[in-house]
């Protein structure tokens, strides 16, 4: 296995819930509640889960957009808080909404040039060369540099966002639902672009999505999150061929039209995700799990090995085998 680029250990992020006249603390939302994983150089780790499972919070905590409450985040063995500016610029992010992530008053050229200006030490001509080079990389023409974001389509804007992220030679890019806001024909273009630039620059991705098919297409390994915890983490092929956790099976069962391709009993979940302020005791998934037993209510399962690089947090692993 190649070098570990990013290591996250027992990471926690709680948001206080304040209500009432004096904003009394009513409790905390455990958005990320003890998450550990590693990302190796050159791979794409997928992070899937339904809304509210904490996948976006996790990505923002890694990039220090939110302070963490506990745990470790190490990039190349160093805590992310200790990284200096040039090292920090190796970690980047592409957001879901290309309409919201570009400044509407700023022309494309200056949006892409900004990282260079902030880094300093580039002449005007160098910046111009770099910007045009990046535009070419993401499949846009130099003419686009003079446009405003509102003059571009959603797919073109996402290309601009990607071009900006590619400035200053990044190593690790977090893609937070980068194609969810796009139409399917544009989605394919952006996914292929992300694959191509990964190959060209040897990038490492943490790819967040709720779409299992998209994740399967682009990821090498996949982590499944539910209510702030990782339920299962495995190489993509193993996760789709032999999912171990009932929640993963339920997610795969939920893909419309996939019913006849499943290698396991189809699970259609009842009810909704419980409130993250007051998650169920023991295993968080037990309230919706069709197999839940006594033990699931009392003890929280840990991620345990169940195959090559395959981990699942479920008490009933041995029973659900197959």
């Amino acid at each position, binding site marked *: 296995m190649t070098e570990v680029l990013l290591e996250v250990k027992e990471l926690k992020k709680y948001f206080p819930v304040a209500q009432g006249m004096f904003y009394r603390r009513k409790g905390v939302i455990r958005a990320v509640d003890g998450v550990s994983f590693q990302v190796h150089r050159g791979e794409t780790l997928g992070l899937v889960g*339904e*809304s509210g499972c904490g996948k976006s919070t996790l990505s923002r905590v890694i990039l220090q957009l939110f302070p963490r409450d506990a745990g470790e985040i190490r990039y190349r063995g160093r805590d992310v808080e200790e990284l200096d500016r040039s090292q920090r610029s190796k970690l980047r992010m592409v957001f879901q909404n290309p309409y919201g992530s570009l400044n509407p008053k700023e022309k494309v050229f200056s949006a892409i040039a900004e990282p260079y200006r902030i880094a300093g030490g580039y002449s005007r001509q160098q910046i111009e060369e770099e910007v045009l080079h990046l535009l070419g990389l993401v499949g846009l023409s130099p003419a686009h540099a003079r446009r405003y974001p509102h003059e571009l*389509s959603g*797919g*073109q804007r996402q290309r601009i966002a990607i071009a900006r992220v590619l400035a200053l030679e990044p190593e690790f890019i977090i893609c937070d639902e980068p194609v969810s806001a796009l*139409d*399917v*024909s*544009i*989605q*394919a*273009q952006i*996914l*292929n672009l992300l*694959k191509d630039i990964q190959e060209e620059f040897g990038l490492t991705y943490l790819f967040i999505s*709720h*779409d*299992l*098919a*998209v994740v*399967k*297409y682009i990821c090498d390994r996949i982590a499944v999150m539910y209510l702030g915890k990782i339920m299962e983490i495995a190489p993509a*092929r193993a996760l*789709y061929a032999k999912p171990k956790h009932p929640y993963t099976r*339920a*997610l*795969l*069962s*939920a*893909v*419309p*039209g*996939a*019913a006849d*391709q499943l290698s396991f009993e189809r699970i*259609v*979940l*009842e*009810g*909704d*995700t419980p409130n993250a302020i007051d998650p169920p005791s023991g295993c968080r998934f037990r309230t919706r799990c069709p197999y839940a037993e006594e033990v699931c209510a009392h003890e929280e399962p840990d991620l345990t090995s169940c195959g090559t690089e395959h981990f699942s947090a479920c008490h009933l692993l041995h029973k659900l085998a197959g």
Partner: protein
Amino acid sequence: MSGKHLLEVKDIRVVFPGKKGEFAAVDGVTFHLDQGEILCIVGESGSGKTMTGLSVLGLLPEQARVAAGTVRYQGRELLGLSEQEMYGIRGKEISMIFQDPMVSLDQVFTVGSQLVEAIRVHTKMDKRSAVELSLEMLDKVRIPNPERVFGSYPFELSGGMCQRVMIAIALCCHPKVLIADEPTTALDATVQAQILELLVELRDATHIGIILITHDLDIVKGMADRIIVMYAGKMMEMGTRQDVFSNPLHPYTQGLLKCVPTLDMPEGFRLYNIEGIVPDIQDMPEGCRFCTRCPRAEEECCIVQPELREIAPGHFVSCLKVDEVSEVKAGWAQ
């Protein structure tokens, strides 16, 4: 097409005022719906699928108008009807549910009062039996504890629950047609599966005809009896699920099927790129609307508008090159 279909839409054209005069957001859409059938209209944003649905019920935005075409429900023309007459159709004969249930429900009234209102608008039922029917409907859409939900406000319920309530309201007067416009797009995957399952169950139980409007090919694959593929306001292809998924004939359908990642995709498969972007709706090419992105487009395609032609029984395609195209096998095999 004979007059025996439940719903018949013919050559409908929806126009909006634009910078250079009127432009058509929907152009020449023709289809029919039978009892107990699920017809999926699939397309990307701006393809006119929502406007097609709205035009059936006369719910188009104010600036839009239907410039041509007919909409016949059980042989009765709906397009010329007065607003008053349409009231008797909407909800009673043809119902609609929308993408975001949180927006469609009124936040300041309880679920129960909204259900009772919908029932009493269309029937002469007294209040007590309307309440009873409401509870029965909530139970039918698999809401646990209907009594509690009956007295709840929409903001107290989750998105999935609200969509169930919407379906209950839509179906409470036993309409024969349900138009569902992206009913699960705002919902999570596992909740989406529940709602889709529910729609199929209701169809089997009541034999309602459903027009399901969606952008999600996975949903179409799992639900549809027949499929309409739309692009830039025009129908590209229409056929049974088998026709469209196993033997797609239009280059756009073929591209669409190859550019969406699916779970059964072979490893190492590279998604197909449909190059370019959808042309501006106000500035459409003169010929086929897909010609700017079509890999098979020739000069002729940019000048002549292709007609929707029946290639095989029930399988319609609008492409000039369809005979050449049909020889090329689509899907993963290519």
